[in-house]
């Protein structure tokens, strides 16, 4: 029998490296927890009972599979076949729940009773709070005060589901600082607590675990497009902050060399340092939050503050697998500025009757950018990952559009 070897299965290696990226840049105090997590995760993967529990919850609680929706009006507009992977229809409103459920089940398996998590836009916080409510786990969500202001509704939703929101006042008061505070909590409480990290970032084995739990997006999309079109797509487009929705949809297509993978970073208000959150485009390799990957930093190696209309992309680092995909050229990364993201946000609302999250609006905006620079071929098939819905963004969108609610 011929064994097919898939390149995408070779990463990370035993040291948690994706090429030269990734690794374990964590305090010694956390190493036992990371080792325990890796061992439990590897065991869970082999355990049919765990897999069945996960599959059942993804189906009945999350509502998978999510549709691959043929967006007829967008398609007509662009002269290409545009499909939207509807992660916005997943329970709690974004792809984040796929990983939250998976890691919450792992938490139970490790015999831990307390979960902590960071959140930027609040979507991961909401997803984690929901998973913890369901599984009876104590839950604390670290959220920057600036993000609590931008995402008041999500902070409230988190509390409604019984979790505590811990306001982070340090640094830039956004996602980066929420991760710092969650790490500090974990350093102190790792014996009893699992850090349910929400993006494909952090020390090994997190980038791998998050990728694996999010790969359900790409596996479904691949099957769905083959059923709908009888062939693979020409392009797959996703927004990239830490990069979990993007790696989730990219990963099952990595070995399909003809499928172009495009990651869209937050261009904020421009390329100047401090005014965007595009680590892969404007950053350089460095060590942040446990892994070696592209980061936005100054000449002294200090991490820069970031800016984006979208709280979920407002992060100065990115998952190490994306750094590898950039360096190998397997994926291409580009930026969309706030103004273009907001225009795409409105366009999708009007053309398709779908209100996207501001994060996902960056991926939609890439369609417009591609058309402008001649990157769209007539009739080609494109899948855009619609990673979340925009209900949480009403205040931000209204104020950006000059409307008072």
């Amino acid at each position, binding site marked *: 029998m011929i064994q097919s070897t898939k390149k995408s299965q070779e990463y990370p290696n035993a*040291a948690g490296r994706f090429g030269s990226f990734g*690794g*374990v*840049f*964590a*305090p*010694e*105090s956390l*190493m*036992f*927890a990371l*080792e325990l997590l890796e061992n439990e995760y590897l065991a869970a993967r082999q355990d049919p009972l765990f897999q069945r529990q996960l599959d059942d919850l993804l189906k009945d609680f999350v509502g998978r599979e999510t549709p691959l929706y043929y967006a007829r009006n967008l398609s007509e507009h662009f002269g290409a076949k545009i499909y939207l992977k509807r992660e916005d229809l997943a329970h709690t409103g974004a792809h984040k729940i796929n990983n939250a459920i998976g890691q919450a089940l792992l938490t139970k398996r490790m015999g831990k009773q307390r979960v902590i998590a960071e959140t930027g836009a609040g979507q991961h916080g909401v997803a984690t709070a929901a998973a913890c409510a369901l599984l009876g786990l104590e839950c604390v969500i670290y959220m920057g005060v600036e993000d609590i202001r931008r995402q008041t509704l999500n902070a409230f939703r988190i509390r409604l589901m019984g979790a505590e929101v811990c306001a982070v006042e*340090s*640094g830039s008061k956004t996602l*980066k600082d929420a991760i*710092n505070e969650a*790490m*500090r909590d974990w*350093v*102190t*409480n*790792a*014996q009893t607590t699992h850090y349910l990290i929400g993006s494909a970032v952090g020390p090994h084995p997190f980038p791998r675990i998050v990728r694996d739990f999010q790969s359900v997006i790409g596996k479904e999309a691949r099957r769905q497009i083959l059923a709908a079109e009888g062939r693979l797509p020409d392009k797959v487009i996703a927004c990239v902050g830490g990069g979990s929705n993007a790696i989730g949809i990219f990963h099952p297509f990595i070995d399909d060399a003809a499928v172009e993978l495009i990651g869209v970073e937050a261009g904020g208000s421009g390329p100047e340092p401090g005014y965007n959150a595009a680590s892969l485009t404007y950053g350089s390799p*460095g*060590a*942040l*939050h*446990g892994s070696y990957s592209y*980061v936005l*930093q100054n*000449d*002294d*190696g*200090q*991490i820069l503050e970031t800016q984006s209309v979208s709280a979920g992309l407002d992060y100065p680092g990115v998952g190490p697998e994306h750094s590898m995909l950039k360096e190998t050229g397997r994926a291409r990364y580009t930026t969309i500025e706030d103004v273009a993201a907001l225009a795409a946000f409105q366009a999708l609302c009007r053309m398709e009757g779908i209100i996207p999250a501001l994060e996902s609006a960056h991926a939609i905006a890439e369609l417009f950018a591609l058309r402008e620079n001649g990157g769209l071929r007539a009739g080609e098939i494109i899948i855009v990952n619609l990673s979340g819905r925009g209900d949480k963004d009403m205040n931000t969108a209204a104020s950006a559009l000059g409307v008072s609610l």
Partner: protein
Amino acid sequence: MTNTLQNVFATTKQEKRAAFIPYVMLGYPNEAASLAIAQAMADAGADIIELGAPFSDPLADGATIQKASQRALENGMTLRKYFQMAEQIARKTNIPLVMMGYYNPLLRMGLDEAMRSAANSGICGCITPDLPVEESLAVISAGKPYTIAPIFLAAPSSSDRRLKAIGAAAQEADSGFIYCVSLNGVTGARAALAEDLPQFMQRVHVAAPNIPLCVGFGISKPKHASLAARYADGVIVGSALMNAYDEVGATDTAAGVKSAEILARRMRAAAVTQ
């Protein structure tokens, strides 16, 4: 082979006391005051001074050092300035200096240049709190030509297998000491020492029998120093000294420096083995 740091522990052992190792963040509250604090630590009888380099995202540090880092960076502190200041301290004090800094600023400068600059500044050891032993090879190799000793951390949660690996790496790299984190947590003052400190220190000692062990994190009071000295070759004090400075230093720098020096003297005096 013995290095500068090992000589320190040979001396303090003869004097039946633990080495007193204060932590001073360079650039906090400003350049001049941090130089004055380092001098005060020397005057108080520091055996080694640990010089902290500020980082924007110090995830192993508690509130005191976080705020100090932020302030130092706002004041324009950089790694280049750090090395210039370390050199001034080395010239004046003749006390072995150890660098405590997160990995990314060192990486950004380039590990070779960072280690060469450190050596030129009179620094003889390097602690990187976000590098576990398995990711330390690059720093070890970069420091070797300049005889910068890599100093590894050990934590109560480290398994015996990990402690053994840390001990072996420390032996191999001719580390000056192992930095034993007294508790599972971040830096910062605490009311009491961890109860299981003796058992933890014993486990590290078994895993690394020939290497001096220093205890840090949470050593805030002379009685903590006194207790820790029973099990360790050195005690490291950071946040408590900063707090001592801060109590009066905001309005009167000289009084802040004096306040830190007074606590340092009491800590040093308490850290006796018998």
